[in-house]
């Protein structure tokens, strides 16, 4: 009896001690130490990649490539930007970057006066190098150090050739461009025209519209009314392709038309897979990001001075609907 009581008391005592110590350990364990300041070690260069279209697959890839390369060369980089081509926000970000005195700005070119003002005057005033990526703005206007991205003129030619081989050398083609007339789109159109002007039987109709859905739809309606026997569409601005195809689809079947576009919109690839687009120019966004960061650091460290002002072109290829499936 006495033994049992002692045993029970002993067990109770041990259990109480155990639980108390476990509890005390939990309370006094200080694993919630505040993050410490990283000391004096800082990245070599602070770079910023600014785009107008955050969170699109294309720019996501550019950002990923840039981050990867930055890590490799020991620079720190942040991806900033606006959503859905919000220009005001985009320009503000550039200004902040300049005022923040980053070491280099890699930016999606925007062919507007404000943009040029910022890059040519303010960035130059602070001595911050600008590299345009994917979309170029001529050096004379922007004082950019270089351009990294696809050769848009070549891309236009590529689309025109594909169009000819698909459609034949006679027919009517609609080119749907951006009314803002950005430099890179101009280049694409130039490329297309330069090929097609050899073929007098191919008649081209150029129309301009903004990104706004209603505008695209009304422009498409207008074009189809004017040219009922049109055979091919080229959405020079990739963002208009989806609305345009939808409008065509409302009137008739989409398949007989030859429709082409570029990959720098978030629905280009899905349209291609559905077979609604016949061909898409596929660019190399990751390479763009990588090379731009690489060139920037090279320029900053003085390894490559000056950079090639014509730009560093990345690979482009024609992606056909048949391949995508």
């Amino acid at each position, binding site marked *: 009896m006495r033994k049992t009581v002692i045993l029970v*008391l002993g067990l*109770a*005592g041990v259990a*109480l*001690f155990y*639980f*108390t110590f476990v*509890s*005390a350990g*939990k*309370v*006094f364990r*200080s*694993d*919630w130490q*505040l*993050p*410490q*300041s*990283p000391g004096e070690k*800082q990245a070599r260069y*602070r770079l910023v990649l600014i785009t107008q279209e955050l969170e699109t697959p294309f720019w996501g890839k550019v950002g990923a490539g840039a981050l990867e390369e930055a890590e490799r060369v020991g620079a*720190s980089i*942040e991806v900033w930007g606006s959503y859905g081509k919000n220009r005001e926000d985009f320009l*503000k970000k550039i*200004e*902040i*970057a300049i*005022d*923040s*005195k*980053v070491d280099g700005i890699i930016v999606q070119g925007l062919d507007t006066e404000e943009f040029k003002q910022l890059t040519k005057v303010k960035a130059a005033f602070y001595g911050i190098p600008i590299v345009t990526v994917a979309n170029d703005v001529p050096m004379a206007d922007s004082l950019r150090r270089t351009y990294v991205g696809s050769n848009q003129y070549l891309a236009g030619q590529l689309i025109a050739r594909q169009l000819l081989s698909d459609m034949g050398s006679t027919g009517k083609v609609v080119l749907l461009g951006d009314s803002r007339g950005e430099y890179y789109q101009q280049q694409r159109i130039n490329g297309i025209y330069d090929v097609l002007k050899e073929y007098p039987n191919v008649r081209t109709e150029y129309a301009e519209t903004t990104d706004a859905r209603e505008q695209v739809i009304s422009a498409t309606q207008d074009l189809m009314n004017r040219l009922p026997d049109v055979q091919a569409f080229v959405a020079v601005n990739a963002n208009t392709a989806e609305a345009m195809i939808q409008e065509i689809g409302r009137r008739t079947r989409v398949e007989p038309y030859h429709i082409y576009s570029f990959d720098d919109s978030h629905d280009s690839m899905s349209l291609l897979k559905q077979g609604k687009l016949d061909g898409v120019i596929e660019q190399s966004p990751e390479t763009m990001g990588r090379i731009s960061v690489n060139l920037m650091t090279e320029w900053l460290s003085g390894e490559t001075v000056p950079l090639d002002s014509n730009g560093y072109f990345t690979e482009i290829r024609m992606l056909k609907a048949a391949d995508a499936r």
Partner: protein
Amino acid sequence: MNGIQKKIWTLAAVVLFIMAAIWIALTYYNQKTQDQYNDILQRYLRMNEVTTASQQTVTSLNNYLLLPSRDNLSQLEQSKEKLRKARIDVIELRNPGNEFALTNYMNLIDSLVETTERSLTFQSEKETEASGNAFSEADRISKYISEMSLTLLDAELKTYDRFYRGIIEQSAELKKLGIWLLLLITFLLLLFTYAFSLSITRPVLKLTQAAKELSRGRFDLRIEVESNDEISFLAKMFDRMRININNLISEIQQKAQLEHELQQSKLLLQESQLRSLQSQINPHFLFNTLNTLSKKAYLEGSEETSDLLASVAALLRYNLKRLDRSVTLYDEVRVLRQYIEIQKARFTERLRFHTDIDESCLYVQLPGLTLQPIVENAVIYAIEPEEDGGEIWFRIVDGADRVTVEIEDDGPGMAEERIRQILEERPVESEGGHTTGIGLGNVVRRLSLFYGCDDVIAIESGRERGTKVRLSIPKARESGKQDQASDRG
């Protein structure tokens, strides 16, 4: 300070220690949590300060541009100073999560200061338009700073979310710890108090029981108390008292015993004296007559009768003299022989007496008239009733520290019951009138009194097996006993 007081102090000290430990731990924990909160809050306040300072700078600049007075200028300088200080404070907020943003933040502050100065420079050079541009730029930068502050705060909230949760979780754990601690302390204190109170009350209880036993008169139980305080001392003293009382009592008992023995031997002596007095009514007359008869017989030529009468006279004299003092074995044997001679004259051939005596040990002392009554007994029971008489053996054998005297007959023997009666000194019913006056019982009693022990005499007997009385007489008597014995004389 010792014993019970010490124990009480210890208990108090333990309780005090536990309370102090808990208080210190809680205070420490509280302080730590508060510091963490403070640190985090401090960060927010510093960022907010930057925003305020930048806005103030822009406001001051605006005021100055509108009204370039000394007052406004000094105010502008003040706010710029404040901004610089805020910037320095912000440096300390760097952590891996916000390093990039924070560098931008500080550079923005620098830009603001530079732009402000540029605006001032233009103002002093009367280039109003450039100054205005610079001001609007400063204003924009100030807005950017505000926005960046918000972004940074947002990031901070994300970074410190984990810590807040940690702190909240730990608060919950603290509550649990409190409960466990309370249970543990209650448990330990109960155990400790139980053991402590027991250590005081148990010895007291033992002492009480011992006192009770003592009051009932049991002095032979040891009082044992295992403890190390005053009670143990008390118990020791109590035990010593018990031993003393015990000794005293046993001494008293011994004395009473002695008294009793003395009383008995006195009574016995009185009885024998009475008897001898009774028989002394005319012993001297009888003795003288016997001697005269002996001489007369001798003169008449009856020598045998003369000798017999002399023996009777000698026996009578011995009987008169030697009852209350010790004699040697030699005297006893001599008297015995005379007695046998008398009896031989009576029983002639019917009494066959054999002796085997070790002459070297006849010096031992023994009470007078010891052997003769025994042999007389043998004659009465073994010879007298038998037609053809019987035999009596008398032996004295030397032993290591005792001399053995054996008197053996071949008579009908004695019953167990009777032997016991004799040895246990119980009164025996009348044995008939033809003894010399002293019975066997009397001999046994005197022997045991004389030697102070009961094993001097032994009787072996059985139906038709004869009787053997054996006396083991110590060669040296204990001195104390001798004194007592001589006291009697």
